[in-house]
């Protein structure tokens, strides 16, 4: 965006410029060179505190500016042509800003005067330049920065507009220069800064056109026919397939606010940027600073455009960044990961609660298929039961699960060691009442028990409420009780519980 001031503001700005100029003595003007007026603000001379910009490789972002005043910021960016991995087994000669795709991230403050040095490495084949969308001026700096291999150019601009801006090479043929990796982001922070975020990351999408098919190995050359037809062989985040997965995934902790500075270099495709499993709490759409949209699922980012998305991560897990034009994500590389660690929050997200066979209309009970399946299941159960090794493991598993059930409910009355409370709650450890009748034990858990009973010769008269357990839980907890604290009286299966439950209804 280039400044389009409404007429009154423009006039005011010009007025300020003139006023500012008249305040300076001729000698001051001569020594300071240009005097730059910021609409609505005081004129800014170029004699400002000097800073050298911190530039970062994706996915990292330079720290917030923090300054409350403008500065003269020197940016040194080296253009280099480098051969590196595009996908496994696939190499590509990228043309880069800073040896990286996307180019190094630049962060300045609204009103800063930026002295830009573009250095084209002597090993480059091509002349290159840079068009920063943050520049208000012809070509965005391109004409002033056209640089032969082994040469260096300098130009200066004032960052008039806050926002997240794309920069790119604008040398003919432009689509090839961009496709080969010549794009990046420059963030012009508003004067008041941005709200704090716990994590800030830099992700940029680009489309590539190789002479070989997708994943064809070897050093691949650019294919201008595919580029003109807009048929990319790769659509990638941060310069290569898999740049943000596995060990290289973005990281965050539960409860943190994650902010992504997302840009699209293109040259051709618009991105439907989406993070699977998250909703963007806030989106600075199109990289502008004025309007923040909330609760966005997918934000559209044009080629040569950007967006800032922000969300608080509430639950742990791996969240997938995609271009939701999904063939690009699935087949061409537009996929990244955000790994969030920390405690689960089952209220927000349960994880998988049930996984069972669903037969649907196609396979009604009694059909040949379901009969056959039932036979096979029975056969499997029998085989397991006959194999002592597996049977023991099955029982061990049951004991562990049963202990959990016991500690979640039963221990409140029967106490941790099943000893009970004399005269009030009967014991389970060494209980003759328990050992005498397994079915009664199951019914007791399912339906509860009240009235007088005798356990180990002592009378009890109390009320035990029915337990709201699943069949599995009843089987597990009774197996645990019947094999703990000196008890050794076999086990209860889920099928037995089911049968008894049905019989009692």
């Amino acid at each position, binding site marked *: 965006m280039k400044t389009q001031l409404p007429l009154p503001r423009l006039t005011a700005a010009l007025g300020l410029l003139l006023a500012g100029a008249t305040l300076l003595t001729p000698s001051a003007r001569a020594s300071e060179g240009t005097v730059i007026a910021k609409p609505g603000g005081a004129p800014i001379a170029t004699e400002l505190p000097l800073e050298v910009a911190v530039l970062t490789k994706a996915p990292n972002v330079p720290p917030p500016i923090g300054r409350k005043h403008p500065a003269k910021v020197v940016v040194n960016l080296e253009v280099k042509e480098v051969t590196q991995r595009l996908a496994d087994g696939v190499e590509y000669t990228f043309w880069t800003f800073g040896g990286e795709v996307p180019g190094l991230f630049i962060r300045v403050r609204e009103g800063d005067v930026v002295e830009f040095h573009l250095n084209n490495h002597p*090993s480059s084949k091509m002349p290159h330049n840079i068009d920063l969308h943050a520049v208000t001026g012809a070509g965005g700096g391109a004409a002033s920065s056209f640089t032969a291999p082994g040469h260096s150019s300098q130009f200066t601009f004032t960052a008039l507009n806050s926002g997240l801006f794309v920069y790119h090479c604008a040398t*003919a*043929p432009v689509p090839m220069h961009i496709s080969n990796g010549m794009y990046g982001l420059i963030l012009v922070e508003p004067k008041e800064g941005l709200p704090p975020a716990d994590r800030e990351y830099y992700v940029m999408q680009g489309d590539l056109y190789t002479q070989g098919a997708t994943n064809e190995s070897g050093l691949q050359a650019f294919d201008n026919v595919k580029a003109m037809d807009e048929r990319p062989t790769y659509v990638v985040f941060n310069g290569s397939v898999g740049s943000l997965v596995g060990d290289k995934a973005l990281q965050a902790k539960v409860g943190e606010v994650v902010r992504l500075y997302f840009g699209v270099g293109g040259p051709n495709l618009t991105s439907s940027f989406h993070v699977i499993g998250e909703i963007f709490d806030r989106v600075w759409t199109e990289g502008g600073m004025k309007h923040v949209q909330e609760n966005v699922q997918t934000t559209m980012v044009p080629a040569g455009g950007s967006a800032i998305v922000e969300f608080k991560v509430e639950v742990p897990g791996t969240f997938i960044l995609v271009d939701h034009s999904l063939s690009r994500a699935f087949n061409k590389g537009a996929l990244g990961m955000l790994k969030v660690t920390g405690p689960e929050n089952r209220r927000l997200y349960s994880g998988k609660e049930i996984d069972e066979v669903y037969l649907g209309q196609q396979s009604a009970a009694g059909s040949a298929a379901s009969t056959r399946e039932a036979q096979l299941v029975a056969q499997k159960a029998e085989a397991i039961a006959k194999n002592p090794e597996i049977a023991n493991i099955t029982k061990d598993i049951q004991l562990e699960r049963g202990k959990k059930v016991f500690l979640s409910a039963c221990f409140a009355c029967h106490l941790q060691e099943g000893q009970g409370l004399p005269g009030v709650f009967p014991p389970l450890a060494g209980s003759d009442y328990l050992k005498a009748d397994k079915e009664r034990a199951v019914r007791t858990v399912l339906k509860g028990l009240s009235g007088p009973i005798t356990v180990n010769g002592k009378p009890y008269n109390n009320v035990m409420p029915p337990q709201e357990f699943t069949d599995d839980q009843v089987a597990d907890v009774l197996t645990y009780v019947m094999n703990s604290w000196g008890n050794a009286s076999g086990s209860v299966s889920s099928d037995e519980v089911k049968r008894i439950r049905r019989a009692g209804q």
Partner: protein
Amino acid sequence: MWRSPQTSTSSRDSERLAKISGSLFKPMFSRHHHLSAAFALTLAVSAIAGRADHTVPSAPAGMVVIPAGNYAPLIRTKDEPPSVPVAAYYLDERAVTNAEFLDFVRAHPKWQRSRVSPLFADVGYLAHWASDAELGPFAPAAAPVVRVSWFAARAYATWTGKRLPTTAEWERTAAAGFTSTNGATEPGFPAYALVWFSKPTPDTLPSVGLGRPNFYGARDLLSLVWEWVDDFNTAMVSGESRGDTGLERTLFCGAGAAGARDLTNYPAFMRAGLRSSLRASYVVPNVGFRCAQSVSP
């Protein structure tokens, strides 16, 4: 393999036929184009037969002849004609080598590295040579000479009794494919022309003359180094490739490269871009040159 310009040879056509037939049996040929030898021979013979119409004297040693024809500039203004006639000329088959340039600086010490005027060559002139008159490991004798300014290239050409080719001459030669005057219509050729760009410049350049000869017999035009042309500074592409309509001349593109003849010819755009990024005193690690000569008037 390299024949110096001073060596004399037999008649132009028999040399050319021998060269083309010989190249048929180089593995490169069939690997790149899968033409059967018989088919390729037919093409080669018919190419020679077709060229019998041109009444052009045979080329000096080490040069190839490019018959008169038309050149359609990549970029032109509305006022300029879509194509311009180009007279017949001779062009070096290969780029000038380090060894040849060494002969030149020995004959003209003012072009040696330590003596060259800074007006005519920037810092870095012949920087990869071991010394003023010694090539060393980074400048193999048969590799193309690079890091030479336009002034130096021009002085060399004059020394050999030749000149630098014009943009029109160079581009007309480079527009040919392997089997015709128009590479753009040869299957696979446009893609081939982009392959060089996918490879970074090696630290030490390979020898000249290893590339497959194009239709005219010139080698390495699209596969070794950039080359100076006499009128490089008329390319006039500003750094801003999309908006050059606003300049004092209607130079380039504008509104989506509207002034360009062939928007699909990416290599030609890149050459135009490179030329316009240069100044005559620049020395660049992958810019060399070859010489041309007019067919006597």
